């Protein structure tokens, strides 16, 4: 039962890393898009892709938190107290990101849109970094059991944490570029599709290089994790992840974005599984094992049954949402983000405006 719950947590982390990560990556490209006019089209595409789904994507994070505190309460209390700083900063970043994204569509002037957009984009980069840094703290065995039993600073400001934080940002950017290229094709914007294709290839190569180089960082900073990732199941997972990442590059290069979505998701799922295998049987290495961390069987059973019942309603809903989105049946037309602020627009009216 404990293993089943751990798997559910890993599924949640993977879903959040892929879907939420891509949303953060959208923010990354928004940040890198250049001036208001030059970047207007890229930003418009990010806005179009994210609008209907980002809230649902974000819920995966909540799912992970709730699963961990119910199924592994001692681990949750320990890691949240020791890693309070990066998690608090991530939470603040989440406030800024979500609010700025929600408000952005209502900006009336290009200046307002710039300020709100910059807040959105900057926080989109900071959140995955801090969450990645927190994971680095766990994976490198810096979070002992107890109420702030670990070092509040070096637990997340260390080579492994910085590496995983940077990788989280890059992976998000990679995923986002792959997804956005596909969405641009669907929105019939071939120039944007090309632009995102180039970004996807660039980000993919950079992510791959950093990940490979990162192995050396892990070898010197987190030997146990390194050993886990380079032997047995961990090694298999790392290889699968690497192959899936490389396959995604090939699929993107040949403009087969539909398959690229799945292979990029597989790359993330594999590395998440690899992390779990590498630190198995520990939840908080080097001491707290899965069995010690797990809640009672009654709780775990109730949790799994409850979620299974919930899934009966949830899964069809989720399928329905993504089907509507991918079929283009929800209203999310492409509009360059700066268009509303251009001096002359054909209709002279912003979408949704008009006086009776």
């Amino acid at each position, binding site marked *: 039962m404990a293993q089943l719950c751990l798997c559910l947590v890993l599924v949640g982390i993977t879903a959040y890393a892929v879907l939420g990560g891509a949303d953060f990556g959208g923010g990354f490209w928004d940040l890198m898009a250049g001036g208001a006019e030059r970047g207007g089209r890229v930003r418009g595409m990010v806005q179009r892709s994210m609008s*209907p789904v980002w*809230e*649902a994507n*974000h*819920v995966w*994070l909540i*799912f992970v938190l*709730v*699963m961990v*505190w*119910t*199924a592994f*309460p001692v681990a*949750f*209390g*320990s*890691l*949240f*107290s020791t890693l*309070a700083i990066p*998690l*608090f900063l*991530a*939470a603040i970043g*989440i*406030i800024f990101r*979500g*609010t700025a*994204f929600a*408000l952005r569509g*209502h900006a009336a002037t290009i200046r307002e849109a710039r300020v709100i957009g910059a807040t959105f984009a900057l926080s989109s980069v900071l959140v995955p970094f801090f969450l990645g840094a927190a994971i680095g703290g766990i994976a490198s065995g810096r979070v002992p059991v*107890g*109420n*702030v*039993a670990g070092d*509040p600073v070096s637990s997340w400001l260390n080579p492994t944490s910085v590496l995983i934080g940077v990788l989280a940002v890059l992976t998000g950017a990679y995923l986002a570029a792959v997804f956005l290229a596909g969405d641009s094709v669907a929105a019939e914007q071939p120039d944007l599709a090309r632009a995102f294709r180039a970004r996807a290839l660039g980000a993919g190569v950079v992510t791959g290089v950093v990940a490979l180089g990162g192995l050396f960082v892990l070898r010197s900073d987190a030997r146990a994790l390194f050993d886990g990732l380079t032997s047995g199941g961990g090694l298999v997972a790392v290889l699968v992840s690497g192959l899936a990442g490389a396959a995604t590059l090939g699929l993107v290069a040949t403009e087969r974005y539909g398959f690229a979505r799945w292979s990029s998701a597989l790359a993330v799922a594999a590395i998440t599984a690899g992390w779990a295998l590498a630190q198995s049987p520990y939840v908080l290495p080097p001491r707290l094992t899965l069995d010690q961390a797990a*809640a*009672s069987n*009654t*709780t775990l059973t109730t*949790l799994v049954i*409850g*979620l299974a019942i*919930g899934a009966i*309603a*949830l899964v069809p*809903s*989720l399928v*329905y*949402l993504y089907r509507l989105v991918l079929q283009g*049946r*929800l*209203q*999310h037309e492409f509009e360059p983000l700066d268009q509303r602020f251009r001096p002359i627009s054909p209709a002279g009216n912003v*979408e*949704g*405006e*008009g*006086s*009776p």
Partner: protein
Amino acid sequence: MADAALLTLAAERVTGALGGAGGPDAIIARRMQALSLAVHIPIVCFGIAFPAMFLFVEGLYLRTGDLTYKALAKRWSKVALTIFAVGVVTGTILSFEFGLLWPNFMATFGDVFGVGFALEGVSFFIEAIFIAIYVYGWDRLSRRTHFLTGIPVIITGFTGSFWVLGVNAWMNDPVGFKVVNGRVVDPQPYRALLAPNLGHELTHMYLAGYIVAGFLVAGVYAAARLRGRRDLYHRTGLVVALSFAAFASAAQGLVGDWAGRRVADSQPVKLAAFEGLGRTQKGAPFTIGGIYDAKKGETKYGIHVPRMLSILAHHDPNATVTGLDSVPAADRPPVNVVRFAFQAMAAIGTLLALIGLWFVATFLRFGRLPRSPWFYRAVIAAGPLALVALIAGWIATEVGRQPWIVYRVMRTAQAVTKSTGLGVGFAFLVVVYVGLGAAVVWLLRRLASQPPQTEVAAGAAPGGVRQAAG
């Protein structure tokens, strides 16, 4: 409730799964948590009530075909989505804070109440999915399908509240676990989540959602009416929002009585704090206003109504009501804060019910809206007042639970993180929330300043696209 004496004894023995005493900053942690809740709860009110309101208006559109209703429903749903988005992030902060501020509470009791949040997460997930489909599906889905996609939003608004309040009810009246040698064992989540307090807490909060959202929305249209906007669009906005608020605030009076009696049974010390009742007595008086003097153990300067508290708490003028002196001073909440919050909530609630009554009585008697501008001024004031009552109510119940985080089982001071520098985090959070508040006010003003959209009938334009008129 289980035997109180046993639980008091147990309290001395629960040490918490992370071991050791808590950190020194429990009061700052409580303020941080309170601030975050005070920001999140008003947003939740809109999540509870707004979907029912816009779906009702869409129903009017489907029945009459009048496009004014469609324009209003669409506008409201877009506002709801934006508020929902802000709620997504403020809710996330709360779940982070559970771990950041109260690690020992989570580590000790996560396996008892956590399932509630898991199920709340499922509700919330479905809510996020369908509110997005609903708002982005205007004019894209068939009219019937579109209407139907709104229904899960209402249902999940309810189930979400159900699970969260299940946890809160459990904190106030904990059941579903045993304490053995200072450790919490044998958790039974399904029992814990159907804590006896759930019924009244859920009903009370659910109605509060309709009162707060109803009056705040009605206030916008009341202000418009004072400026001479009397068209169907603005009148519908006013009447629908006000009707929800009026019925909810009338019903809230009955729930208040129910809640009061439940609290008297399960948390007598909290009730004593609400009422400033120093010593246990038969035929206890009800005291309006005044200040509780902890040294003398009595409430001074208030208006005493003899035997009234016994009647309210137990429906019996001679009933014994437990006073604050039933527990040691260290186990009492800060009486005046709790008492003031409770009385503010009750007074405002009464006032809101009267405003609702004014509306309903005029409507039933004359078949029209009240004419007096004072009515509309009152409605404008009612929204912010309802917010104050909402927060005051939560202060009353949460501060009234102190010094316990899990009533009579675990002390708040023991649950708190040992992190230092909470003050810095608190200051930071205040700045962030002030910014957030400013942003939301900015947005609502921006939305309110936009003229309503002109809808064109499906078929009149390709795909029923909106068309700018005028």
